[in-house]
């Protein structure tokens, strides 16, 4: 399915380039304009959506495992708010420089995660980290709202970033982001069995020889890097980190050795599929994929949690 979506993603778009023209270029290099569209727009965009989808979905799974909280996500631990504040800061310091936005978003996400580590390091229970995340989110949002009040021109940068989308993907940053995401995904898979042991609770995990606090730190750190990579490329895409791990848990159970690769794959499929629809539904206009994900994700997520509650009679 991912392969089919990749083929569709590079074949269709909002420009009036036909499917036939795309494939003629791929096999015969016939039309240079089509080549430019492919190399500078569609292929980078397709790679970006795959990277962001898989990174966000796996980041959600890592946060949920580390905090033993099914509702944990990049939003819960303050990563999104950190990115948002720094995007506003970037827009004030370097107005109009698009690359600055990506770099600042990345830095903001990481700094928010480091701040949580610093606050929660003395008593790093799962509730401590969630509470620290809520506190930090509020604080960072207050800072960014203050900046927007003082510099009203930056409101557009913040709102476009918070909606999320891939219309302006910069191919220059993709090799670095791709490398970091792949390294983090491999590291996550190495931690899959440890994530299974963590499910037994802190006392039992400790008795099995798992360094509980260190493992939780590692999961949050890798998750924060993955979320930061995604945020720096596509802005804030809601529901991917929440929806995909839940969906996969319902289908495959809780064994992270299978759950993690499945989450990675379905995260990529979901974001790529939604981005394709976002480009085609109102073509030649496109709506940001973040809006599409929310329209699709919210009802599905509601259905998922309500059916789960019914099943567990909670």
């Amino acid at each position, binding site marked *: 399915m991912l392969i089919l979506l990749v083929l569709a993603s590079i074949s269709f778009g909002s420009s009036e380039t036909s499917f036939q023209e795309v494939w003629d270029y791929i096999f015969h290099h016939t039309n240079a304009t089509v080549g430019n569209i492919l190399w500078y727009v569609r292929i980078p965009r397709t790679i970006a959506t795959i990277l962001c989808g898989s990174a966000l979905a796996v980041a959600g799974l890592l946060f949920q495992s580390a905090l033993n909280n099914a509702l944990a996500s990049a939003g819960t631990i303050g990563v999104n708010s950190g990115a948002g504040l720094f995007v506003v800061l970037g827009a004030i310091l370097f107005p109009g420089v698009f690359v600055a936005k990506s770099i600042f978003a990345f830095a903001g996400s990481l700094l928010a995660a480091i701040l949580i580590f610093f606050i929660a390091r003395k008593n790093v229970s799962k509730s401590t980290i969630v509470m620290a995340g809520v506190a930090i989110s509020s604080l960072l949002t207050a800072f960014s709202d203050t900046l927007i009040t003082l510099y009203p021109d930056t409101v557009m940068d913040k709102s476009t970033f918070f909606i999320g989308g891939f219309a302006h993907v910069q191919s220059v940053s993709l090799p670095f982001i791709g490398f970091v995401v792949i390294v983090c995904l491999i590291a996550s898979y*190495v931690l899959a*069995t*440890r994530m*299974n*042991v963590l*499910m*037994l*609770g*802190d*006392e*039992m995990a*400790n*008795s*099995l*020889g*798992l*360094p509980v606090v260190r493992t939780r730190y590692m999961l949050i750190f890798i998750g924060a890097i993955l979320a930061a990579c995604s945020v720096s490329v596509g802005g804030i895409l809601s529901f991917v980190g929440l929806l995909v791990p839940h969906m996969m848990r319902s289908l495959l*159970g*809780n*064994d992270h050795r299978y759950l993690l690769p499945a989450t990675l794959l379905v995260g990529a499929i979901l974001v790529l599929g939604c981005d394709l629809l976002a480009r085609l539904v109102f073509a030649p206009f496109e709506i940001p994929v973040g809006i599409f994900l929310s329209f699709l994700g919210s009802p599905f997520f509601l259905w998922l949690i309500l059916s789960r509650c019914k099943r567990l009679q909670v």
Partner: protein
Amino acid sequence: MMKVSQLSVVLEHHQILHDISLDIRQSSFTCIVGKNGSGKSTLLKAMNQYLSYTGTIMLESKDITQISKEERARMMCYLPQQRSIPDMNVEQLISHGRYPHLGFSKTLQPQDIKLIQQAAKKAEVENLLHRNLTSLSGGERQRAYIAMMIAQDTDYILLDEPTTFLDVEYQLDIMDLLHKLNRQGKTIIMVAHDLPQAFSYASDIVLMDQGRIISHSKPDELIQTDEIYHCFGVHVRLSQNPNDLYRYTFER
């Protein structure tokens, strides 16, 4: 042998354990008894390195703080009293017992799978392997956890009130299983709330009160003293009725 020396634990500015010293014999079945709040569970948590403490705990002549977590988990396992019920099946749970024995890749080898099957057989949960823990009764779930401890294959087995909230039939099942493991050479250290049960199964009884050890002796020696009466307000007698559930009975 496990040797605890001058162990003190302070939690939230309250001293829970006061200078505890205790030698646990190899292959003994030691039950720790005492009133609620006497520090029994805290002592077990400290032994399992889950709480910070002052003093020393030596395991097989090694300071337990000087050995790695995984090495410790290959020597000693622990079953806490309160646990969340993870969403996994019995086979997955038992396989976690092999975690400290796996290499960096944490992949089960054929010998691990064999040990998991043997552990399931010993704990009599072979027919429950594919059942989810959430669907089991309390007794079945407890047996599944003990199967996990058997798979962990440690010389020391620490348990915090493993028969609490279970029906009598399940309580006897669990105690018989632990007794069998003890006969195979495992050292059992168990916090117990049921005095007749503890006295009937234990080779050694540790009596605690207000964070201190009052007595450490064999059950038959302890019933000759007034210490149980001073602590619990009951007298211990050897049962005269062969139909009684346990060898010891308690009277006001």
